[in-house]
């Protein structure tokens, strides 16, 4: 089951739990009110019946049965009449309309006393007393009023319970959508930071609530991380500057020395080798810095919609001739319409490095293919060869920095690390597969963020 997000929030669950607890409390409270009200009403009824019976008994004592009957008739017509029955020794009803009842307290049912009353059957609480001359006096009161009062309280309680639940749920929704907005704000900020916008901070509302405290704490953490990152970048830039500058001077001096050296003195070739070595060191250094800069993710801000087909065509056009000169072939299988958001320069380099990797590690006669298809979520780009391939256990490691299958071969082993950094920057997945025979490196764009 897929609940709407607002119903799945922690705050809504909390609100729902609290609403249930509160409704339970309302129900218990209601039951208590009902019980006390009911017993109070019953108590009142008992007192009224007893008082009425005592009053009629007093009438009997002062004037006998006749006086009692007259009093009953008179009281029956009164505004606050109860139900009565006066019965002689023979069991004959002398006055009143209550049905026969045992002495003491009992409950009897009557049929409607007056026409027009719809409820025919009524429960009546009756107190019957045997008077000294054997006459039975019964005084009773309809319990209907207590039932009505109970029903009214019940009705009110159900409404209260329903309103409690409705208001609780509505309040929970309001609270959690507010909560959700703030959590979404935090999530959006985090996403933006992941995407390279390191300046982004979680909005604070200036209240002192726990979410605001959390936001402040997270922002402080982000500030700290930012400082560390800037520090690290400064250190690496400083290192780049500090190390590259003397290396650059070394190269300049070697070049000056070469320019001033006597031709054919033998020093010339030594100087040229020294310059080449220096260039090699500088290349490694440049590649490392470049990887670090790409990994920093700031390039994402400059992403544009680009046609990968154009990039692939340009690479194939540039590399086909040199690859051919090595006795290999480079062909393309490029589908039109594979467009992704990215950095053209970097993607060009990614593909160039993959093609160079394929051509460097394969023997003459190898066929290299650059392929591109558009996928529903982005594009799939691959470079495949039918050369000797790479053992499966090495597949994961070929993108590691300075990793080389064959230590004796030249090259620093940073080309594929750069490929990985560029793929990561674009949120693309890299897959290394056995091309049976050969190696196939596949770059899946858009798969991760679908």
């Amino acid at each position, binding site marked *: 089951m897929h609940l709407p997000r607002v119903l799945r929030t922690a705050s809504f669950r909390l609100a729902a739990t609290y609403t249930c607890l509160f409704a339970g409390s309302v129900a218990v409270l209601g039951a208590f009110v009902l019980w006390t009200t009911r017993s109070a009403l019953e108590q009142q009824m008992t007192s009224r019946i007893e008082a009425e019976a005592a009053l009629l008994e007093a009438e009997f004592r002062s004037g006998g049965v006749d006086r009692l009957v007259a009093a009953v008739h008179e009281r029956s017509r009164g505004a606050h009449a109860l139900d009565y029955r006066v019965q002689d020794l023979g069991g004959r009803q002398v006055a009143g309309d209550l049905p026969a009842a045992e002495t003491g307290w009992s409950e009897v049912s009557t049929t409607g006393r007056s026409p027009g009353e719809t409820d025919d059957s009524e429960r009546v609480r009756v107190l019957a007393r045997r008077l000294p001359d054997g006459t039975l006096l019964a005084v009773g009161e309809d319990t209907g009023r207590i039932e009505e009062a109970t029903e009214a309280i019940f009705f009110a309680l159900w409404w209260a319970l329903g309103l409690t639940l409705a208001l609780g749920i509505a309040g929970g929704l309001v609270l959690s959508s507010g909560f959700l907005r703030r959590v979404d704000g935090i999530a959006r900020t985090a996403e933006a930071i992941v995407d390279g916008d390191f300046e982004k901070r979680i909005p604070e509302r200036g209240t002192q609530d726990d979410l605001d405290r959390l936001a402040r704490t997270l922002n402080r953490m982000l500030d700290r991380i930012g400082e560390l990152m800037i520090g690290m970048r400064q250190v690496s*830039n400083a290192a*780049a*500057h500090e190390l*590259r*500058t003397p*290396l*650059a*001077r070394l*190269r*300049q*001096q070697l*070049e*000056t020395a070469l*320019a001033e050296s006597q031709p054919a003195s033998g020093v010339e070739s030594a100087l040229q080798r020294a310059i080449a070595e*220096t260039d090699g060191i*500088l*290349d490694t*250094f*440049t590649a490392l*810095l*470049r990887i670090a*800069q*790409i990994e920093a993710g*700031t*390039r994402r801000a*400059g992403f544009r919609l680009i046609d990968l087909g154009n990039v692939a065509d*340009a690479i194939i*056009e*540039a*590399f086909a*001739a*040199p*690859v051919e*000169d090595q006795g290999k072939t480079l062909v393309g299988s490029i589908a039109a319409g594979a467009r992704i958001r990215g950095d053209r*320069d*970097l993607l*060009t*380099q990614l593909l*160039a490095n993959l*093609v*160079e990797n394929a*051509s*460097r590690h394969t023997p003459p006669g190898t066929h290299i293919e650059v392929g591109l298809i558009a996928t529903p979520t982005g594009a799939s780009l691959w470079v495949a060869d039918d050369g000797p391939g790479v053992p499966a256990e090495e597949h994961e490691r070929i993108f590691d920095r300075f990793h080389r299958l064959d230590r004796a071969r030249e*090259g620093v082993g940073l*080309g594929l690390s750069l490929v990985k950094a560029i793929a990561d920057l674009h949120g693309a997945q890299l897959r290394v597969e056995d091309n049976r025979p050969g190696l196939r490196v596949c770059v899946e764009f858009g798969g991760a963020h679908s």
Partner: protein
Amino acid sequence: MKILIIEDDAATAAYVANGLKQVGHRVDHAPDVRDGLVLAVGQTYDVMIVDRMLAGLDGLGIVKTIRSTGVKTPVLFLTALGGIEERVAGLEAGGDDYLVKPFAFSELLARIDALARRPPMATVETVLRVADLQMDVVKRTVTRAGRRIELQPREFRLLEYLMRNAGRVVTRTMLLENVWEFHFDPKTNIVETHISRLRAKVDRGQGAELIQTVRGSGYMLRAPA
């Protein structure tokens, strides 16, 4: 040519200045931002070489300031940062070209040459001629001694770039940047291979070779002396 160098690293400045003087240029060197601004605005130069990372003020800031005074002298940025965003930032600030330290002196020289003689945008020629080689940029035709030469699109761009810079050295990096738009250094002999194929089409069977290799620097297209 009269060239201004704004560079706070004395060794690099000396290396560049000495090299430029040896090939006959006049060179002024400003070791800091203040001197650089005074010279750049007060005097006329053919090219300015500006270090991207100067103590005190960013090289970008200097160039922006110089440009804001209306000085249109071509600017070549030098930088120790191999940064990938640096090139774009440099060009946006008003720089015309960009060179990462360390560089071969021949590379610097070739770029300065190209910058100083870059024709104003309005006067881009559509028909280029070097000796008996003729290119019509609009009709996209090339003939040598009246005979038609069929070129692939990239070969055409390569030859066009060489012809527009005829008589000047163009380096491998300049060709990669301008013909292929590759702003990185491929480990494959792309330029060498394509030059050799272009030569086969342009120069083979002809009396004089127009496309010449300048050892240690690059290539040059020029009419035989």
